């Protein structure tokens, strides 16, 4: 247990937390209802469809969640383009060559070829890769999902093979998104040693001073310099 009076830093603003909450809710629902349909020929898929209120309700929930995700994406887009905070956050999370160097550095450190781990700023390569992978995958899911939702319209516009392709992309990208979420995001923020079994940062937005200094030393240093 962490000490109650331990010093904490606010890492996630209320804006970010609301967006994360929207994303968490919609993506979880989308994955549960999507996988149910994808594996509807197996007992697990059938069980999931049953738990989701039957075949028709499953589809309804999937579409409702998709609207929620869509709203989340719009919210995020407005946040980074219209607010100063969002704009600064976005600049921070843009990929730089240094991030790939950091990845190499981290691998070398993990196997013992470097004595010090890479030093991260506000966002390390792990968070950035996650953001961009999720971003691209979610856009892919939204575009393919809209085509599938409005298949009656798109059947008249797109050739049949493009419709089939859309379905393949929707299923495959969804699977990758799910894997990424579980094996990258969950591991990083919840299951890694020191954070296991669950981090509540997404709710209150705070991390401990110690964690901040350890995981984001460059940001920490920069803040201290600004304050002086």
């Amino acid at each position, binding site marked *: 247990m962490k000490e109650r009076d331990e010093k904490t830093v606010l890492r996630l603003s209320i804006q970010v937390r609301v967006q994360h909450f929207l994303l968490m809710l919609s993506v979880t629902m989308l994955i549960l209802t999507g996988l149910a349909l994808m594996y509807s020929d197996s007992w697990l898929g059938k069980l999931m469809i049953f738990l989701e209120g039957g075949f028709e309700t499953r589809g309804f929930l999937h579409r409702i969640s998709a609207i929620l995700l869509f709203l989340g994406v719009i919210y995020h887009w407005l946040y980074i383009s219209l607010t100063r905070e969002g704009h600064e956050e976005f600049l921070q999370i843009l990929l730089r060559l240094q991030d790939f160097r950091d990845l190499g550095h981290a691998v070398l450190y993990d196997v*013992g070829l470097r004595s010090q781990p890479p030093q991260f700023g506000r966002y390390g390569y792990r968070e950035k890769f996650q953001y961009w992978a999720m971003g691209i995958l979610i856009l892919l899911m939204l575009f393919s999902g809209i085509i599938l939702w409005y298949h009656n319209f798109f059947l008249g516009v797109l050739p049949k093979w493009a419709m089939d392709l859309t379905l393949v992309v929707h299923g495959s990208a969804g*699977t990758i998104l799910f894997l990424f979420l579980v094996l990258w995001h969950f591991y990083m923020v919840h299951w890694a*040693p020191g954070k296991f079994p669950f981090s509540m940062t997404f709710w209150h937005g705070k991390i401990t001073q110690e964690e901040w200094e350890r995981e984001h030393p460059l940001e920490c240093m920069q803040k201290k310099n600004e304050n002086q």
Partner: protein
Amino acid sequence: MKISKVWGVIFLIGGMVAVEAVPGFAQVDPLRRCLLCHGKAGFKEVLEGGKERPLYIDVEDFRGSAHGNMVCTICHTDVRTIPHLSRPRRIHCLQCHYEGNVVGAPVERKPEKYKESVHGKALEKGDPRAPDCRDCHTSHSVRQASDSASTVNKRHVPETCGRCHLSVFTAYSQSVHGTALSKGILESAACSDCHREHDLLPKDDPRSSLYPQNVANTCATCHQNETLMRKLGIPVKQVQAFKESFHGVAIEFGFLKVANCVSCHGYHDILPQSDIRSSIHPTNLAKTCGKCHPRVTAMVARGKIHVLPTEPSSGIVYWVSQFFKWFTILVLLGLFLHILLDLFGRFRAHRTT
């Protein structure tokens, strides 16, 4: 005056006299007594209103039938004398073909199935047009279905059913199945292959082979048979592709209004894709799909309909699917490796401090 009836009576009396006159005649051929009259071509009864009812039995045809070694009175049990004292009663197959009969008539569960069928139900309701056993099997030339002369032999089934279902027979005769059957390709579907025979149920009965949820399986009995389809040069993955498609999954979960095989292909009048009249000819696809999807255009003909992303013949859909398959494996390996490396790194750091 009904001349032929008079002649019939004269024949009957004459026949009886002849039989009585020659001792041992009856032992020569047990059928001959009956055939004295019923063996004469054109022997008939004229019914009220001038309708004729043939009473002639083609003895060669009868001898070749499943009952060919029996005498008439085995079934016509009420016929004792010539001339007949009373009008011989109608006989029924179930006189012998019942469970526990002593004459050794084969019994299958077919009569029970028949009673459940559309024909059996219609008969029960008293519909005079409803067919009984003999309407399909005939009365006097009953033969095993395997006998090519049988009315229920596969090559004759369409004609047999077509005696009542004439318009269906006409449509079927021009279909891919009908033309193939008439060419002697016995693997092709006749009526009974889809409708079944004795358990021919209405299509809104969930047990029916024609119930929307069962249609794909009915077609699958042949169209998923790899050796048969390869022999006939017909693609075999269509049923599987359907079952994995949106339509197939939805119908599995009880959405009966979605398309099944016959919604697009038709049923009695199924034609091959290459036929310009076919509902699945590329030029007709937009119209066919348009029955349910009103905005469909000719774009729907650009690509395969029964697509399995795992089949190389699916073209770009296959290649993109393969890309994603390997990409997913790569991502999975990468993510696991990353976790392992990270754990290993943390473990080393923990040990050194």
